[in-house]
């Protein structure tokens, strides 16, 4: 769900870059993981983990118990080989009692921990990000546990977890426009959870990003993007959003985006009707902010400039720290021939106090990616129960 985010970074979900120095320092330290105070009980039949796996599991349990930052710093200081051995052990040699909820929770927590170090910026290099997400994906992979004949309730829980985790990582990749990785995520999610409204929302926004004319200005032009025309991608987006809205009429972000696609295609009346419904039904300020902005754009086309100004001013009132509505007001007034008012509005742009609030319009094409770390934390709490 779109939300006003408070950050100085313009890129959605780009987290504060934690100093690589810190990682370097931690890497240089000898690994010293103290015994966890409240280690989950191992099943009685369990064979003891190999030393590398034991160390790794201790870190995972620290994460589960709430020592998130410490666990994150520690896991990035572990050798990759050590972690790979541990993950392999979890998959093959760990206790066979797959129905043990603690076993499942541990694997899920491990996947969340690796996602955390990426999303929170504990690791910054592309290769490190790729590696941690790949390890996490292996942990999340159902195959790891499907072989273990999970009880129905555990299987259901894990399937839900898998969807949430995949959505989270896909949104992260969308936020940094890692489109080559995202295309695989979206394909997997659609294949496995194709009817899920959140998945459809992600899928639609992914297609809309590929139709974004300014994508090439970011020097991001995946070769496969050319397989479809801009209108082709927009049609994919429209279809996905429409299905999402049909599946969950309360998913206002999908409705807003559906209206935006209609607007992009010049279907102004349909767009306007949808924006009006969002303005009527949605209680999310960022969504109503965007609905006003996009409504203003639709009004401009047939020359309803005074209506456009009303919408832009409404957007400015919702987000006083955003400059975009004032630029839009100025331009609409200029087109209306009211030069003096256009000048006044343009001058107001520079008086907007720099705020921590990020203008949702600036992040629109970076996907429905909001509040990833809080979502991750909610998932962590779930697996820590």
């Amino acid at each position, binding site marked *: 769900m779109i939300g006003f985010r408070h950050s*100085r*970074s*313009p*890129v959605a979900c780009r987290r504060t870059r934690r100093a690589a120095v810190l990682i370097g320092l931690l890497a240089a330290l000898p690994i010293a993981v103290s015994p966890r105070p409240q280690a989950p009980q191992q099943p009685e039949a369990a064979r003891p983990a190999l030393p590398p796996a034991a160390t790794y599991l201790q870190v995972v349990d620290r994460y589960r118990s709430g020592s998130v930052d410490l666990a994150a710093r520690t896991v990035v200081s572990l050798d990759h080989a050590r972690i790979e051995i541990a993950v392999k052990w979890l998959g093959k040699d760990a206790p066979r009692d797959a129905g043990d909820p603690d076993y499942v929770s541990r694997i899920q927590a491990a996947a969340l921990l690796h996602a955390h170090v990426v999303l929170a910026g504990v690791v910054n290099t592309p290769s490190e990000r790729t590696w941690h997400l790949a390890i996490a994906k292996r942990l999340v992979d159902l195959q790891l546990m499907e072989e273990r004949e999970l009880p129905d309730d555990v299987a259901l829980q894990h399937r839900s977890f898998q969807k949430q985790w995949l959505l989270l990582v896909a949104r992260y990749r969308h936020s940094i426009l890692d489109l080559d990785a995202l295309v695989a995520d979206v394909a997997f999610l659609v294949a496995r959870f194709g009817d899920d409204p959140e998945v459809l929302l992600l899928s639609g926004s992914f297609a809309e990003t590929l139709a974004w004319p*300014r994508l*090439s*200005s*970011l*020097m991001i*032009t995946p070769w496969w993007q050319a397989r479809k025309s801009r209108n082709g991608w927009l049609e994919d987006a429209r279809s996905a959003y429409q299905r999402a809205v049909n599946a969950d009429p309360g998913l206002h972000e999908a409705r807003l985006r559906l209206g935006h696609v209609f607007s992009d295609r010049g279907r102004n009346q349909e767009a306007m009707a949808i924006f009006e419904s969002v303005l009527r039904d949605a209680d999310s300020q960022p969504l109503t902010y965007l609905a006003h*902005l996009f409504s203003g754009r639709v009004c401009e086309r047939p020359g309803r400039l005074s209506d456009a100004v009303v919408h832009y001013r409404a957007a400015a009132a919702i987000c006083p720290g955003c*400059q*975009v509505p004032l*630029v*839009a007001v*100025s*331009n609409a007034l*200029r*087109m*209306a*021939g*009211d*030069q*003096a008012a*256009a*000048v006044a509005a*343009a*001058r107001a*742009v*520079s008086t907007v106090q*720099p705020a921590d609030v990020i*203008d949702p*319009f*600036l992040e629109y094409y970076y996907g429905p990616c909001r509040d990833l770390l809080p979502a991750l934390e909610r998932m962590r709490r779930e697996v820590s129960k």
Partner: protein
Amino acid sequence: MNQRPLLPCALLLGLAGVGLAQTPTFRAQIDVVRVDVLATDRGRPIRGLTAANFELRDNGVAQRIDAIWGATLPIDVMLVLDASDSVRGLVLEHLKRAALALTESLGAKDRVQLWTFSHRVSLAVAPTSDQDAVRRSVDRMEAGGATALLDAIYTAFTSRAPGPNRSIALLFSDGKDNRSWLTETEVIDAARNSETVVYAVASRPLGLVGPVDNPVSGTGPDEDLLAAITNGSGGRLLWTTNEQQLRQRFLDVLEELRSRYVLSYTLGGSPTPGWHAIKVRLKNRTGEVRARAGYTVAPDAPRQREGSRP
């Protein structure tokens, strides 16, 4: 720097109420339009021209040039500088030096306004002749964020304060827009209508090679867009191949500004609403003239009559 009109003072004084209007004002059937022009011969500015050397047409109708000003008219320079992520490091340092070099080369009556932009547009220094204030602000410049080039240049030249000075916007960027609300068409249209002449100095990201006149596609600023904005306003687009050239490019722009002329003419009767194309050419000699493409008279004339005027 003294304002030194090329017309008799009496005539200038007579025009003072209307001739220095910054935007076309339409008052009581007397509508004065100012056009900032650059005359060149084989690329070199032509100096010493008089009104008699120009032929000016407004929507195809020849106009009598009431007044012409040369280099002595004070200049308001809007520096509109890209401070996004892409200029971090060496580019930013050279950009600062270029901005300071230009500022220090201005006359006492000239003024500087400093705008910086990333995904946000910031007015760092309001119009001032205080070079120390500009220096302090330039020193504080930091780079970071995305690029809202179109919103920035639009905001800068649209928020221009009315005044008698010649108005120039000097835009620097090394990348393409990726965050603006405004479209290319809207900003080009606004630039064509503006009395501010827009120059742009564009640079490709450090380390990318290619001929100056044929920048590597997709790696630098949008040449077509910048050319359309600058040409439409009567300005020009200049390229740099490396950041060391920035200072010289900025000074080149200033030198060219001092070779420009401001022409003013008066429209009789009620101006026809809509687009007024301006065509300026030289008479009795060879050469080319750069000038803004024209201006728009809104159908809502009363509103315009209430508009700004110095």
